């Protein structure tokens, strides 16, 4: 998805919640954020105020993303070579200014200080003495000195202190800051350190085998408690001046009351420090066993708290922490990794102290930490009760109606409640079909828009069983793991062929038109994990193959034409991670998960070499530059021939020869291939269905991506083709745009180009291909007629219908809803629609179906009380109250589409024309009439006339027309046409100007001005007009004061046309202020 075009995702989650193994914990998000390519290692908040809720995430591969939590927009992202394991947000004070900084540590010896808005590395904190990885850190603000201190512990147990002064913070260059203090504290395997925010005088260090309290002033040891029963501590925090909470790897937490020697308020504070021999704590910490008999043991059930004391006996009570509470995790079966625990302390009223735990089953558990101590502390440590607990799956299960899956209606077996899980899917855009492979080995072909309509919208289709018409292919014995439609990737493949792989080790070729199984390959010794299409310039033999990868670490080249496996590369020691190609050398390059690379000769099946390390990386990188290399080899045939000879590869030789022939043909044709190459392959698809899963064993969930621009183009194309659709020749097309409305000018080029392509394609076919292709063509036509048994329908109109029905704000204007339903043919949703948001760099957030949980609960209550409250009344309104970015995207889409439909003939989703592509000639007059109407309505919109005035204008028009009586009667009476046109104009007007009033400002998040402004000159005329109208409407809505605020906010970033000398200072400021990133979204 390119970042610039307006693409809206809608997700069908299905009933199974995605696997969500919690690896880091912050606050409870409302949506799933996608964007990292590796597992996430840490999260941190990235803004201080409550107005902006930002969050930063880092992954194993060194990526960092800044997200807006409200709508899941990715605001900024960056990638460093090293992976972070911890990030902390901190506001440094520079004079009166406060600047957000992220302090990062990880697999590198420094602490990186990163700007919290731009994610730029500002400077680093470096160790002079024994630098090593930092295992954890804490930031202390001292009120006395106005300095910020960073305390960190390295993996070798050396405590380091950096002091950040205002000077340091201001530094712009990458000069390192060295530590102030470095002191070994003999803490191996340090897990976390935290500073006591209550007294500001002590420091808690948690290591896996013990936890310790240090004096924050001179870092002398005050208290140390070992773990018992082989448990390892993983973290801890002060919950009060005298209490700490420590948690273990298996999810238990313990609250200890600190002994008096650790309490600055107590007279016994530091009373044992001096008694130790001068700073020499024995590095051996496991010596408890032989000392234990001398020490006092507090024997609680299963708890054995032993404190090492100085040899001179003192009153043990002073130094022994008292265990107050134990919290045990819920019995959660089948956790695959240790849970994550964090303690949150509310800084504002009502000062909640919460312990929150997340685990690999996607469950969050919350305990509220009591302020008071239990009454009888010595009898047994009290166990804390869970306050709240919920898992993602539970949340999904509770939903009524349950979250929609893409083909749920076709997958529920009689006698069972749960649908058969979809395990693999591929979308064929040219036919609008979705192919779903399922858990039971069957494959279902179904029209994508139709099935999505069933899942999301209510209508007469709800009464029919097994709707929409579909085809089921049966052949696999068990789960289908991958699907491939090769024709979609390259036209050289037969458009009937579909390839599927399963856990039964087999790969099957299907004919999707007849539903016939063509061939079964059984060459692998493991589940098929991937099916790939080889690149264009491979040898002809390989060009008709698909490449299959299996979990037994083997790769096969399966020829669809010869119906046999032409090469099997196996015996790789590690799972295959990537397949790359060197077509000009006839090499297949296999990258394994351990970093090793195997180079195979495709023709002979011989292993050319196997390499590791830097050479492996270089070989993989070289494969990416394969295109210029191939061009090069054509220019130097001699060199290439020599290479082929030395490698004794017949295929490479053949390949060479063919290349030369092809060049000849290309020259003869003088076709401008470059032009064709520039067009992205799937840019014209208004709808793309993408299957996603967060875990290989999860069922697929499906995201429908609607490309608004593409929908508009397709609608206009069809409109333009309407006059004479049976014969498409350049002549008619050249004339057609003249008759159509102004959208046509944009269109004309496009269609012309398409026709040119087709002609060129034809010439090529006849020049280069044998006559066998003609036979094939004949057969293909026959087959196509067979495929008519699957419902033929108008894909574009269906897509528009689905999209508009999802976007419209239902239930705000009853009159308009009626028009939408009865005249325009839109359908009300029957389930909440989970939208998504695509932001910078393809980062995406998807709303969870639980998003409207509270509203749905309200609905359930309403039903119980006997009130009639339809689901759609609730589900429609909500999307405009999510966030400003979401509102902007949705309004832009709905208005631009309504405008487009307004300009079309018979733009309603009801009637015969929805069944198949348009085939009737429509009188030119109607076209121009509707176009003129559209213009009128648009004009009214643009000027933001009130709805009523627009309508009265529209209604007066038919009378004028009927008065002139020059219009003969057509299948569509002008009145009917006009009704549609007014319907669309009302719809657009409502979304453009009336929404804030109808929804109320508390439920409406206004569109973002900067996002609208960026579309002021959008390349798509309809989107541009919608953006302009919206922007004007919004500017009017915010009134004078709002406009002034906007100007004030943006003024610092505007270029200043003032005398350069006098304004040097102000310019400097402009330079250093980072631009807010919202602009770029």
């Amino acid at each position, binding site marked *: 998805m390119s970042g610039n075009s307006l693409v809206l995702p809608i997700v069908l989650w299905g009933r199974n919640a995605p696997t969500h193994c919690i690896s880091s914990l912050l606050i409870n998000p409302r949506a799933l954020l996608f964007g990292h390519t590796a597992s996430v290692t840490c999260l941190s908040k990235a803004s201080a105020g409550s107005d902006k809720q930002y969050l930063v995430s880092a992954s194993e591969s060194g990526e960092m993303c800044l997200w807006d939590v409200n709508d899941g927009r990715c605001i900024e992202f960056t990638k460093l070579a090293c992976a972070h394991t911890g990030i902390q947000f901190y506001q440094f004070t520079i004079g009166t200014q406060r600047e957000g900084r992220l302090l990062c540590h990880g697999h590198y010896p420094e602490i990186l200080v990163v700007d919290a808005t731009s994610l730029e590395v500002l400077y680093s904190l470096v160790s002079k003495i024994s630098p090593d990885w930092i295992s954890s850190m804490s930031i202390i603000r001292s009120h006395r000195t106005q300095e910020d201190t960073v305390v960190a512990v390295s*993996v070798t147990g050396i405590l380091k202190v950096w002091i950040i002064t205002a000077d340091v913070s201001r530094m712009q260059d990458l000069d390192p800051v060295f530590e102030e203090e470095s002191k070994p504290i003999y803490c191996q395997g340090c897990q976390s350190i935290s500073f006591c925010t209550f007294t500001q005088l002590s420091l808690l260090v948690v290591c896996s085998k013990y936890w310790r309290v240090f004096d924050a002033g001179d870092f002398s040891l005050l208290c140390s408690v070992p773990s018992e029963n082989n448990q390892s501590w993983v973290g801890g925090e002060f919950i009060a001046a005298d209490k700490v909470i420590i948690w273990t790897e298996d999810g238990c937490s313990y609250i200890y009351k600190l002994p008096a020697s650790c309490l600055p308020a107590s007279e016994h504070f530091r009373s044992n420090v001096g008694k130790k021999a001068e700073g020499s704590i024995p590095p051996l910490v496991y010596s408890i066993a032989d000392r234990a008999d001398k020490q006092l043991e507090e024997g609680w059930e299963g708890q054995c708290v032993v404190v090492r004391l100085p040899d001179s006996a003192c009153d043990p009570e002073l130094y022994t922490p008292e265990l107050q509470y134990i919290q045990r995790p819920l019995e959660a*079966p089948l956790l695959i*990794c240790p849970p994550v625990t964090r303690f949150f302390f509310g800084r504002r009223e009502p000062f909640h102290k919460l312990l929150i735990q997340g685990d690999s089953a996607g469950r969050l558990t919350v305990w509220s930490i009591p302020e008071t101590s239990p009454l009888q502390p010595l009898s047994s440590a009290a166990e804390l009760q869970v306050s709240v607990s919920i898992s993602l799956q539970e949340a999904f299960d509770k939903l009524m109606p349950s979250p929609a899956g893409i083909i749920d209606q076709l997958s529920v077996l009689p006698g069972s409640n749960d649908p058969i899980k979809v395990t693999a899917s591929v979308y064929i855009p040219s036919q609008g079909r979705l192919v779903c492979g399922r858990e039971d080995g069957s494959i279902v072909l179904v029209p994508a828009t139709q099935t999505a309509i069933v899942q999301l919208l209510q209508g007469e289709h709800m009464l029919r069983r097994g709707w929409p018409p579909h085809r089921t292919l049966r052949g696999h014995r068990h789960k289908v793991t991958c699907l491939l439609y090769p024709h979609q990737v390259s036209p050289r493949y037969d458009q009937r062929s579909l390839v599927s792989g399963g856990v039964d080790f087999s790969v099957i070729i299907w004919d999707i038109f007849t539903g016939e199984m063509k061939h079964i390959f059984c060459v692998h010794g493991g589940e098929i994990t991937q099916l790939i299409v080889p690149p264009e310039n491979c040898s002809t033999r390989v060009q008709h193959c698909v490449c299959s990868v299996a979990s037994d670490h083997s790769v096969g080249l399966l020829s669809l034409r010869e119906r046999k496996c032409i090469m099997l590369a196996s015996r790789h020691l590690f799972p295959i991670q990537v397949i790359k190609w060197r077509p000009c050398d006839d090499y297949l390059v296999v990258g394994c998960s351990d970093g090793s690379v195997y180079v195979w000769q495709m023709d002979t099946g011989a292993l050319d070499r196997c390499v590791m390390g*830097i050479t492996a990386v270089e070989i993989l990188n070289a494969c990416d530059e394969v295109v210029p290399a191939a061009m090069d080899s054509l220019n130097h045939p001699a060199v290439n021939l020599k290479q082929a000879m030395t490698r004794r590869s017949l295929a490479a030789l053949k390949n060479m020869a063919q290349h030369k022939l092809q060049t000849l043909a290309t020259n003869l044709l003088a076709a401008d291939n470059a032009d064709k190459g520039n067009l992205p392959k799937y840019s014209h698809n208004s709808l793309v269905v993408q299957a996603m899963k967060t875990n290989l064993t999860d069922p697929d969930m499906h995201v429908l991506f609607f490309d608004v621009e593409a929908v508009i183009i397709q609608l206009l194309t069809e409109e333009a083709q309407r006059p004479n659709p049976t014969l498409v020749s350049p002549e008619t097309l050249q004339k057609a745009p003249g008759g159509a409305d102004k959208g046509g000018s944009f269109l004309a080029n496009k269609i012309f180009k398409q026709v040119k392509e087709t002609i060129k394609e034809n010439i090529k076919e006849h020049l280069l291909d044998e006559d066998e292709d003609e036979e094939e063509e004949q057969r293909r036509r026959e087959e196509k007629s067979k495929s008519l048994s699957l419902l033929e329908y108008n894909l574009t109109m269906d897509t528009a219908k689905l999209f508009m029905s999802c976007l419209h704000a239902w239930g705000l204007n009853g009159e308009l809803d009626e028009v939408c339903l009865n005249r325009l043919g839109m359908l009300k949703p029957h389930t909440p629609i989970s939208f998504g948001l695509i932001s910078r760099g393809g980062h995406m957030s998807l709303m969870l179906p639980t998003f409207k949980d509270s509203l749905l609960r309200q609905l359930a209550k309403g039903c119980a009380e006997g009130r009639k409250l339809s689901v759609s009344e609730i589900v429609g309104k909500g999307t405009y109250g999510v966030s400003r970015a979401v509102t902007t995207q949705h309004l832009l889409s709905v208005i631009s589409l309504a405008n487009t439909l307004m300009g079309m003939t018979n733009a309603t989703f009801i009637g015969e024309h929805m069944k198949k592509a348009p085939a009737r000639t429509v009188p030119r007059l109607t076209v121009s009439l509707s176009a003129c109407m559209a213009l009128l309505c648009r004009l009214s919109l643009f000027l933001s006339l009130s709805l009523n005035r627009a309508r009265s204008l529209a209604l007066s028009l038919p009378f004028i027309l009927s008065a002139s009586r020059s219009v003969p009667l057509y299948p569509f009476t002008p009145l009917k046409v006009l009704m549609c046109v007014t319907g669309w104009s009302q719809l657009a007007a409502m979304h453009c100007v009336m929404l804030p009033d109808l929804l109320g400002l508390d439920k409406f998040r206004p569109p973002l001005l900067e996002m609208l402004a960026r579309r002021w000159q959008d390349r798509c005329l309809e989107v541009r007009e919608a953006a302009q109208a919206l922007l004007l409407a919004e500017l009017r809505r915010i009134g004078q004061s709002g406009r002034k605020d906007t100007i004030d906010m943006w003024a610092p970033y505007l270029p200043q046309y003032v005398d350069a000398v006098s304004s040097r200072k102000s310019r400097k400021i402009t330079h250093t202020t980072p631009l807010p990133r919202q602009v770029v979204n």
Partner: protein
Amino acid sequence: MLGTERSTLSELAKMTAASQAERTVLEEEFNWLLKEEVHAVLKQLQDILKEASRRFSMPSPGLEGQLKQENFILGSSTMDQVKGVLTLQGEALTQAIQDARNHVNQALQLLSSRDESYHFKTGAEVNKLMDAVMLQLTRARNRLTTPASMTLPELAASGLMKMFTPPMPGDVMVNFYINLSKLCLTVYQLHVLQPNTTKNFKSAGSSVLHNPGAMFEYNNTKFEVSHVHKVECVVPWLNDTLVFFTISLQLCQQLKDKCVLRQR
């Protein structure tokens, strides 16, 4: 006709019975795998990695005062102009070795958290642990096998250049890194490009080893590499650790493969 049908039926019944028996056996085998085999492999892994970790001879925190000195004589098979005698003092480890050591220790920590007393319940659990261990091991090995490729200005700004006392002359740059089991030292001789030079200035990209003729800009001065000398010497213990890493990675993968086969 009937007879054949009956026989096929009985055969089918036999087959289902057989597959049922087979299933039980497989189930038992998998339980054995989780209970016994996994721990055996984990033990073996720990032993190997402890051995590897020992090679890194982590200086024990108590022996801070003693500075260990190590000498390396670096040579090259093709050129005799440059000989390197490198003396490493104390903990002056190269970053790569430190990182590799830390990764190994993290892997060890992961393994030690699941000792014999721990009962693995699912194959997925074993898989997840193996993934985490393998990630650390792959990184440890990668740190040794793939030296960081740097641009020349990055190299000039790096700590490597500041390590020397007395400081390096301005027209010499060194890079010092580990490649596989070899300690490599590259010396770049530079000459300053005059601002009015007719040469086409093109900044060199990042690479492990730059070639003569590579150009770069640093501190507003343009340089060109005139000569490159590379010397290296094999460090035997590094070779050992690489072997250990490879063996343990294979052990991990084999265990994973066993679990995957029975995951369904």
